[in-house]
């Protein structure tokens, strides 16, 4: 045994003290850059709040001035704005509802692993990775009145001259369809992970104890999946209520104001009518809605996250 080396190492040097302040400041130092970004977001946010309380139209710079809740009051007296609220809600409920149902159904179909389901789960990733704006344009090509392949298909079914997004009657249907194409996989993928992450043993126990399958589905499986369904649903709801890319690149809110959802309406107010004050007020209303939703969401999401980390 090399006792000489041991002896030299055991000759203890004077112990270095730590810098208690440095240790305490470390987390702050590490997160400082991200913190600055955080502040960087809060500044324009504060400005937006300010704009929404101003009479502020780029075309009439001289009339700019603080008007308290003037923008909000005029908004809520305006039928157009109510139209926006109704359309946004309709869009949200339709997309989230249909996508949840379809997504859960597909997830259940893909639950059992096999070659086919594995291939399909990869296929499902593809639409999700396409930029929503691009997806919208793809569908625009397919629904073109002259050469769109989908227009041709529906004409085979007897719907000649089906106008898709360019007719007020079918515009909503069309954008919801595109939204479903892009985002159903999102729900499916999350629920599938949830399903596959469920412990197998409780289901085996139920099988062993002869528990009826409807009981297993409604009283055991669905409740166990509920946090995943809620998280996926809220995630989508938060996106859907502020949908812009798909609708704007498909119809710019038209035809007429059929698809004037919140952000498209605000965009139009800001960049067509140059009314920054009014646009900001619309966006503040939307922000309030998403803020409430995101609080519900974050609670749910945290619980789920904790569970994933805890490995239960």
């Amino acid at each position, binding site marked *: 045994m090399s006792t000489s080396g041991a002896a030299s190492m*055991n000759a203890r040097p004077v112990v270095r003290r*730590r810098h208690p302040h440095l240790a305490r400041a470390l987390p702050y130092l590490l997160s400082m850059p991200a913190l600055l970004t955080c502040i960087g977001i809060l500044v324009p946010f504060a400005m937006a709040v300010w704009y929404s309380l101003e009479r502020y139209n780029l075309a009439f710079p001289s009339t700019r001035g603080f008007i308290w809740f003037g923008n909000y009051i005029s908004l809520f007296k305006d039928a157009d704005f109510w139209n926006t609220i109704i359309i946004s809600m309709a869009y949200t409920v339709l997309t989230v509802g249909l996508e949840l149902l379809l997504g859960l159904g597909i997830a259940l179909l893909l639950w059992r692993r096999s070659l086919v389901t594995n291939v399909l789960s990869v296929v499902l990733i593809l639409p999700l990775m396409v930029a929503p704006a691009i997806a919208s344009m793809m569908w625009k090509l397919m629904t073109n009145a002259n050469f769109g392949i989908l227009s041709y298909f529906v004409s085979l079914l007897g719907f000649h001259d089906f106008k898709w997004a360019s007719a007020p009657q079918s515009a909503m249907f069309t954008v919801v369809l595109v939204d479903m194409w892009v985002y159903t996989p999102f729900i499916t993928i999350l629920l599938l992970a949830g399903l596959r992450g469920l412990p197998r043993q409780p289901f085996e126990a139920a099988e062993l104890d002869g528990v009826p399958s409807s009981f297993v589905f409604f009283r055991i499986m669905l409740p166990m999946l509920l946090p995943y369904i809620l998280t996926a649903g809220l995630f989508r709801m938060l996106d859907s209520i502020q949908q812009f890319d798909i609708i704007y690149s498909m119809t710019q809110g038209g035809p007429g104001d059929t698809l004037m959802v919140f952000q498209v309406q605000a965009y139009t107010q800001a960049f067509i009518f140059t009314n920054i004050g009014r646009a900001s007020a619309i966006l503040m209303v939307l922000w309030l809605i998403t803020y409430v939703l995101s609080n519900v969401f974050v609670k749910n999401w945290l619980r789920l996250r904790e569970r994933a980390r805890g490995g239960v």
Partner: protein
Amino acid sequence: MAFLEISGLNKSFKDHKVIHDLSIDLEKGEFLAVFGPSGCGKTVFLRLIAGMMPADSGDIVIDGQSVIDANPEDRDIGMAFQNYALYPHMTAFNNIASPLRSRHVTAAEVTARVNETARMLRIDHVLDHLPKALSQGQKQRTALARSLVGRPSVVLLDDPLRNVDAKIRYEMRFELPRVLRRYESTVIYVTQDYKEAMALGDRVAVLVDGAFSQAAAPREIYDMPSTMRIARLFGDPPINLLPVHPITGAAGTEMTVAGGTVRLPADRAALSGRECMFGIRSENVVVSLQPTDGIPMTLDAITPVNNRLVMLLGGNEGTELFASCPQGGPMDRLRGRHNAWITLDLAHAHFFDGSNGARI
């Protein structure tokens, strides 16, 4: 002056006191086994010594120098973890070499010392493996080697035998003292297994509610537990504890146990009139299947444990009592319920205060 002095250590999280005025001294080369039930604060205790979290107050002095303000890397402490905490991206060799690499030891000496330690722990043939290619036992030995190779002043062993199977556990139980003695290490060994604590420790310190409620040689803790709680922690099956109320009458001092009357020895007369807990270990409860003048009970089940027959007896009013006797007698082949009569060996009885659980 002791080699390692821990004095008045405190640590709270919010309002919860995890370590509460904890003090203990260790001599150089001493092996202290710290035993505590889960949730007793052992993780925090180890982290305070290792320097991973600051203590609220108190001091830790190693070989005359306070290390309470030092960073972990400056404390000269080696530690082996319950889950091994091997670096998954480094080979066993590099894992073990890590403490040497930080100390500017020459490459040749690193190799020499890693090999020497590995040979001693019989893992020299797997030094080029990544941790994931090691068996549980090898991982555990690698972790141990890493904690010893730098010959630190103090070695902390955090339940290192918890996750290995029974065979390796016994192997290590007999081998560990040999290795540690060779390295002349001062050791704090934390475990949740009272047998391991008693087997390995020169002294056993019982960590309850963030402080050492008793620190003594294994024999003393087992035979003279200072509180009821400690008594219950040592022994398998656990010690029988029954509330009693001894009364002195014409026939001497008597108490009621499981519906029967038991006369106490004369030197216990002072217990008369006191509400207390009567503790008796299973090996001091004698069972007979033939009627005796003992207390009648039913023998509910016999579970052989480590070459002894452990018997669960049921009495009236739901009293349950453990008795045990060496295997190899007539009761070896019994099954199911039987009538039984028990006698208590009061020479080995313990009495604890009914309200605070202190030994009487």
